[in-house]
């Protein structure tokens, strides 16, 4: 809003303690001592050029009066300014880079974030609905030790909390889930991991188009996977990030490579409402100190 070329800032706050003892100026001192402090706010007198955008409506108001187009509210029930100048309320927007969802209420924002951007696997960027499922996912998919041990002993844990049974293969677990726990055969969060397909060369373009298609406000009904794509230039060479298919609809883990080539079939099957991507900058990943959020450090480059 504050156009740099028309804005003359006089940062008089600087190192001058103009108000004497009252202004402690502790901030400047503290800031200078801390290294790498990116915070720069200082109170500033805003001198705005008269052509500044801030003054546009006031000027138009003035000229409407000069040209006898002004009417005060009391007359004729016409308010002084036409509707397009009426007040608007700020939207909320999802922070995750690449996710363009916007919301009109805080609740929608919270629901969106909590449903889709939590419990995300650092390695493959999949979003799981709970911390427990995330743990299981990481273990089964990204832990080479698990793979080794699974050859000799029962490692596949039943997904139902409290059951505790383990199985030699994921198929056996699936059968268990269906028989004992009455799960549907196509339960989304228990898919076999298949071999990954080859990376697509034209990732970027496809991602971009799907991004555009997903501009709607997200209501996140039902849980859908959030697939991450490597979009920013920084991350292009990131070998630990897997490039995924453009199938936002790919809730099916298994047809991983298949879905890479045939997104259309998946669309029909699942019909998720929205899709989005987010990009995690390579320099950022939640560390151990993080209370909640993303887990799984395998393959993450620091």
């Amino acid at each position: 809003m504050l156009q740099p070329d028309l804005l003359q800032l006089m940062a008089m706050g600087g190192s001058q303690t103009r108000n004497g003892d009252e202004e402690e100026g502790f901030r400047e001192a503290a800031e200078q001592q801390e290294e790498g402090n990116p915070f720069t706010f200082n109170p500033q007198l805003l001198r705005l050029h008269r052509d500044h955008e801030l003054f546009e409506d006031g000027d138009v108001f003035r000229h409407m009066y000069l040209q006898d187009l002004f009417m005060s509210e009391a007359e004729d029930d016409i308010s002084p300014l036409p509707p397009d100048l009426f007040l608007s309320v700020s939207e909320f927007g999802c922070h995750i880079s690449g996710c363009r969802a916007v919301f009109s209420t805080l609740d929608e924002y919270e629901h969106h974030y909590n449903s889709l951007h939590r419990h995300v696997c650092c390695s493959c960027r999949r979003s799981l609905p709970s911390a427990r499922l995330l743990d299981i996912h990481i273990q089964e998919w990204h832990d080479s030790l698990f793979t080794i041990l699974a050859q000799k002993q029962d490692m596949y844990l039943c997904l139902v909390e409290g059951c505790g049974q383990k199985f030699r293969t994921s198929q056996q677990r699936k059968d268990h889930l269906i028989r004992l726990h009455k799960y549907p055969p196509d339960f989304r969060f228990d898919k076999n991991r298949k071999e990954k397909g080859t990376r697509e060369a034209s990732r970027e373009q496809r991602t971009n188009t799907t991004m555009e298609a997903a501009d709607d406000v997200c209501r996140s009904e039902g849980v859908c996977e959030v697939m991450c794509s490597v979009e920013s230039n920084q991350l292009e060479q990131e070998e630990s990030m897997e490039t995924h298919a453009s199938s936002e609809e790919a809730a099916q883990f298994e047809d991983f490579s298949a879905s890479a080539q045939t997104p259309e079939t998946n669309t029909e099957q699942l019909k998720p409402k929205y899709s989005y991507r987010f990009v995690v900058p390579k320099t950022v990943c939640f560390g151990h100190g993080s209370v909640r959020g993303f887990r799984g450090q395998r393959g993450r480059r620091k």
Partner: protein
Amino acid sequence: MWRLNKVRHKAGGHANSLEELRTKRREKERALRQARRDRQLVSKRLLRNEDEEQDTMEVTPGEQDVVTLFQKLHHGGTEKEAFLRPLSKALRNPSAQLTFIKLENSMHLLVGLLTGSDARCRLQAVRCLHELSHSTHTSVASACLPATPYLLTYLSGQSTKFTELCLYTLGNICPDSETVKERLLAQGIIPALAGCMQNHRHNLAVVEAAGFALFQLLQSKDAVQKVIPSVRSGLPSQLLSVLTPDPDFGLAPAIECAWYTGFFHLCTFLINCGALRQCGSLLVSLGGAVADGNTDQGVELLVCPLLRCVGNLLSSCPAETLHSQLGGVDLVAPLCELVVALIHTLPTLARETAWVLNNLTAHSTESCSALLTLNLVPRLLELLPFSQGINTMVLRVLANVAHKKKEFCIQLAELGLLSALTATLKMADQDIVTLSLEVLFMMIVSSPQIAEQFVSQGGLSVLEAIQYNSDGEVRRRATYLLEQHILREK
């Protein structure tokens, strides 16, 4: 004569319905906006004869009549006035205007009548010129140039009606071209205006007209050079003296004068005239009227230029003299009330009011303290949901407060700023997010309890999400805040 308390719908004809009027206004407003963006925002005023107000069904004479009338005038005789009256009416027609100026010696004739010995002819001649000045064609305005030295001379005359017409005519032709402006300046328009205002200072209609002419003069890109001569002529103090609205006459003269005072380059001179105190106290009383809902007089039209004036003055006034310049006028509470009152009726003026508040609080600990003690902060917090730059400016004011002292931060936290920040941090507008992070940093650094409070309000997940924001600066700030100040505490 137009006065605010009379309903005038002169905008190009007689609108038959409210809807037509609304549409017309909306179109006009759009055109004005675009003109401003093109830096070509110019308006002219037309002074109508009082006894003509009743003539709504009058047939406007066509072009042919102009030629006929001119010929009749040209051929002499004593009935000139009889022809001048219809001529001035005929010249309301744009094509008639163009025809007229192309006629040989037409301007020469008018100037002759303007300066002749017949006073009534003079009046009618100036009316004709006035109609011409209202044209949107720059050629027409330039054609009026031969008359300008006389118009300027007459400004020091005594006839009020005549002077008024001269002033509006000059004001109309001013903005049309740089040549015209330069000519007028060389001919001494500014001293003439100053003298005129002095002589006619008790006639508010003339004062209004002079204020308008001055405003028009200062509309050019290089207005700075033109402003300075006006200072030497003593205009700032004169115009300041007109600022207080007259209860009978209305706001119009004060409005024109207030727009003059809004020019940034006059700040130093105005401050020396005690403008900050005067404009400040006027703003307080008008703001009170607005807050009470007394807006049927069009008082917002005066509030707007006053806000500009005070905002500019505050930005030029050195911090150490600020409070002596204000002379005891307390602006903090009235400005806050004004923002709140305007937010639903005139949100853009609310934004300008917030700008003034920023300039007031930027380097004044007293003002910041007043915000807290007068319990104005909750009302400001209520403004944070509103976009279009309003919440950014209001948050800037709160940031000014937080920056002053740690105790202020603690008080702000008690008043609910932290929970407001957890909302503003989630907004789509990057400006507000960045500013929110800055304020959050100041709050957290000032007290460990604030950090805990923030965490208990669910602030961690917000910051974590922000670490994934597309803007690198925003990410840096969020990470820094998390790592250095929040997570370290644990």
